[in-house]
């Protein structure tokens, strides 16, 4: 069976650095951090991390009420990112119901705010009579995929990957598989997540968040840095239009890059500790899938969230495969960890890097930690012809994912 080629023809993003892709890129190029002190979080007893990277919810009323009523914050972000991606791809909204176009959007869970609302309404008096009817649709794990598909009239495969911080990249990987197997022609893929004290709190109770920089929020997270002390949650959504190559070619679509390999696998070792050996396996499997060698890789976009243990394991994994020959950077210093959105969001930025021939540096990486050395960290913008790149995501639950992309050529 001949596998079909899969290219990226559209990209859209709502991020802590702005509500479209140009704003995100401009923010990164200006080395701006979107991390700030979160007002009101000090009221939560025991919450150590008081910083986050919020996105702005705006223009939501452009979505008609009867579509919007089933959407929490994260679904609105996804609809807006999807509309941007479709516009970028030059696809008309009224032409999405062929059954050959799908939608896969991942997130750690449903809308955190909506889930919180449900508990606040129901639990104090064990009373369901005050529950709005549409809350359920905002809370389910497939809320973003479902809402985007309904809003756009998509009738193909609709799925929600839910694997915490690997959700977004798993969505892209799943879309890639569907298209290369010939089951779909186009898939809107991506991830989404909300910033909420309950979300940060879930990492905070495990001491995985940054808590030493509450008064200097822009200095954290610090991927690979000796002063790193944990992750900072962010929010937003990123959507890519994945398209079968011949179809994209036939309609003369602008092509941002080609996906050539993907792997996802679990550590099977520990629910929260990253595992270097399984990371290595995942990346190697993705390279094998792409039929490329480590020496062919021009850039690695790291998962690196700024946790003490996760960054160390990832640096060791990258070192084992690539030594210090391949530029590596993490984007978490700019936008925090957007969790389920991060894989797709950072992939989009990486494709922009590929297009522009530059590697964006890791923000807040001032002194490389002794346990993260031996790889080629990028701390200043680096001109680089990125022909092939790898995007990593390593999630709680021991879920790993790696995607390989190539600069587009007709070869």
């Amino acid at each position: 069976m001949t596998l079909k080629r899969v290219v990226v023809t559209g990209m859209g993003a709502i991020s802590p650095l702005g509500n479209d892709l140009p704003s995100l890129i401009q923010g990164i190029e200006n080395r701006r951090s979107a991390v700030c002190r979160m007002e009101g979080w000090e009221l939560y007893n025991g919450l150590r991390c008081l910083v986050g990277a919020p996105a702005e919810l705006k223009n939501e009323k452009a979505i008609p009420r009867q579509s919007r009523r089933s959407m929490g914050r994260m679904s609105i972000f996804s609809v807006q990112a999807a509309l941007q991606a479709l516009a970028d791809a030059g696809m008309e909204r009224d032409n999405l119901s062929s059954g050959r176009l799908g939608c896969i959007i991942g997130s750690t869970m449903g809308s955190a705010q909506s889930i919180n609302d449900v508990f606040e309404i129901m639990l104090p008096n064990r009373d369901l009579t005050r529950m709005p009817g549409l809350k359920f649709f905002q809370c389910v794990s497939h809320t973003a995929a479902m809402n985007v598909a309904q809003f756009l009239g998509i009738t193909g495969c609709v799925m929600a990957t839910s694997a915490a911080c690997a959700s977004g990249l798993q969505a892209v990987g799943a879309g890639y598989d569907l298209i290369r197997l010939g089951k779909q022609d186009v898939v809107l893929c991506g991830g989404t997540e909300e910033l909420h004290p309950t979300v940060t709190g879930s990492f905070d109770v495990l001491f995985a968040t940054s808590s030493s920089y509450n008064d200097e929020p822009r200095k954290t997270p610090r991927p690979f840095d000796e002063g790193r002390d944990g992750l900072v949650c962010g929010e937003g959504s990123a959507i890519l239009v994945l398209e079968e190559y011949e179809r994209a070619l036939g309609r003369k679509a602008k092509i941002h890059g080609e996906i050539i390999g993907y792997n996802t696998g679990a550590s099977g070792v520990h629910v929260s500790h990253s595992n270097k050996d399984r990371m290595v396996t995942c990346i190697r499997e993705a390279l094998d899938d792409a039929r490329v060698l480590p020496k062919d890789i021009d850039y690695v976009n790291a998962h690196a969230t700024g946790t003490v243990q996760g960054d160390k394991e990832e640096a060791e994994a990258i070192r084992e495969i690539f030594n210090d020959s391949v530029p590596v950077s993490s984007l978490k210093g700019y936008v925090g960890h957007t969790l389920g959105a991060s894989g797709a969001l950072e992939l989009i930025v990486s494709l922009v890097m590929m297009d522009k021939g530059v590697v964006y540096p890791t923000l807040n990486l001032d002194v490389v930690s002794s346990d993260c050395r031996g790889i080629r960290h990028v701390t200043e913008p680096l001109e680089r012809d990125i022909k092939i790149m790898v995007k990593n995501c390593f999630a709680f639950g021991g879920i790993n994912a790696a995607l390989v992309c190539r600069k587009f050529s007709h070869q």
Partner: protein
Amino acid sequence: MVEQHIIDLTNEVFEESFEIEIEKLQPEMNIFNDLGLDSLDIVDLVVALQNKFGVRIRSDERVRNIRTLGDIYQFISALKNEGLSSSDGRGQE
């Protein structure tokens, strides 16, 4: 005669929960055909009216007969005359 504050509070529900302009909120308006509500919205309408007027109407059979905004004014007005709590039991959960 329906009291003005019942009309005002009901209209607030339609403005706040269903984003309908105040100019459209006339008693003869059909809440489905004219104001655009559907069956899912009725769940939220009941919750919003309960919260706004402090009543419990989720199981009240009379909700099924509501067609116009004026029907809601009359229904709330009737509840008020019954003591707002459907003391005959029809409005109890």
